[in-house]
């Protein structure tokens, strides 16, 4: 088991427009990225559990091989800057993803 935050080079969150928050996770080692992708640790189910969302509130979950990363876009509970919002830029919503424990196969000997 490893924490996603220890495996990734970048884990961040930010508004993708005022009604959605997008979580980016980027790697610098293609081997780690491939193992993570193959592990099936990142699914709509995992993200829904981590963020207390219904699966239909996860609008996108996409891996992009050229950038060695994946992106998850989730619905905001409250639109950016409206009364009751906690994070106008959506910039600190990545912490739960950092703490996610993932199980990956070992490197080939």
């Amino acid at each position: 088991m490893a924490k996603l935050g220890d495996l990734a080079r970048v884990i961040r969150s930010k508004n993708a427009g005022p009604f959605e928050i997008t979580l980016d996770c980027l790697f610098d080692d293609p081997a780690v990225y491939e193992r993570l992708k193959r592990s099936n640790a990142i699914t709509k189910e995992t993200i829904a559990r981590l963020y207390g969302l219904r699966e239909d509130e996860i609008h996108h979950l996409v891996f992009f091989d050229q950038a060695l990363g994946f992106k998850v876009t989730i619905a905001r509970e409250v639109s950016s800057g409206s009364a009751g919002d906690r994070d106008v830029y959506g910039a600190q919503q990545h912490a739960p993803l950092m703490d996610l424990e993932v199980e990956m196969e070992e490197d080939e000997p």
Partner: protein
Amino acid sequence: MSHDVKILSPCGMLGYGFPEESFRRGLEHGVHAVVVDAGSTDGGPHKLGAGVAIVSRRACKKDLEIILGESLPRKVPVIIGSAGGSGAKPHVEWTLDIIEEILRERNLRAKLAIIHADFAPDQVLDALRQGKIVPLTTNVPPLTEEAVRQTPNIVGQMGHEPILKALEAGSDIIVCGRAYDPSPFAAVGIFHGKDPGLSYHLGKILECGALCADPGTTKDGILGTIGDGHFTVQALNDCRTCTPLSVAAHTFYEKEHPYLLNGPGFTLDLENCRFAEDRPGVVRVSGSRYIPQDRTFIKLEGARLTAYRTFVIAGIRDPILLERLADVENIVIAQTKQYYPEIDGGDYQIRFYNYGMNAVLGEREYEPFRGHEVGVLFEVVAKTQELASSICATVRSTFLHYGYDGRKSTAGNLAFPFAPSDIEFGPIYEFSIYHLMEHPADGFPIEYRQGGVQDGEAG
């Protein structure tokens, strides 16, 4: 083979500042245009709703003095996207005022094009009744006529089409109202006959300044060059460099999908892009595809005033109170409501943000509290400022003196850092319009005028 087209982006946000040296190095490449994005919705709905800028006038002027002072004498056109932050009429006027001041002070002349992106409520209501407006995402509520009427500044994001017209007219400075961020950059490539897919993809990268470099920043310049079948990007400061991975990774930034980008009238498909090193520090990108849509939908944005806020910041160090903080706060809310039976409960809301405990993630917080001190921010949001302030004062005094079970510190529960403790915040806004509207791509009026003309001089 046609010639290469070079675009200099001085920074990711007009008014964020940039090293002058990077800007000059960029100009030495013989660029076809200097393009800078000035817009963002990241800071919330207030700027659009209240008609105020994101950056200070001083900061915007500092950047524009360098940009205009260096570009105009070289006959390099300057394009500003989403002027003033939100690109509505007051934001465009604010930007024009600064430009005129600089032109006057430096005795410069320029042909100005101003592209308006404002939509009158009646125009939006017509489109709404004709079924031409849809929410942008599934969690944006359907648009209502009431919301349109309550929204003072409504803007639509332009594509490259009106900017292209302004370039064809030989404009020296093009001030765009709200624009799709990459559009002002894409217009330059398309004006010079380059592929729209490459032009838009490059625009998507350049609009953030040097954020695609390593280390990335919005506060430095970046150079893009569009060739035939590819474009390149390179940093202009020796302290940073572009790599295939840094540029590919930037494609992710602040978009809902990593490789499918929807703009006005098209989808940009970057799935099969190739990112390669052209020469050290210069990244070559190819394979960006522009897929036109049958109908053009532009993104409408609008913000309305919803309420007024008064808030208080206080510290809590008492370990007994920290143990039962959430319970005490709920009792404070209940006692306040009880004190005002004559006020409709729907006219105000009371919220507590316990910094150090769970203020950032709210109910999503999973870490147990282990600290010895908490910063509490509490706010009252109400129909009027007077109501917000009156109720907030009651919340504050109730919280300050509430005798919770087991209390030993019977003199007061809160450490206020400031006097007075209650801060009137003023109006708060929400994005009331964030919808797609079917609209002609060139349906953004352009106004031309001569800039820098002195009083009494013929225009």
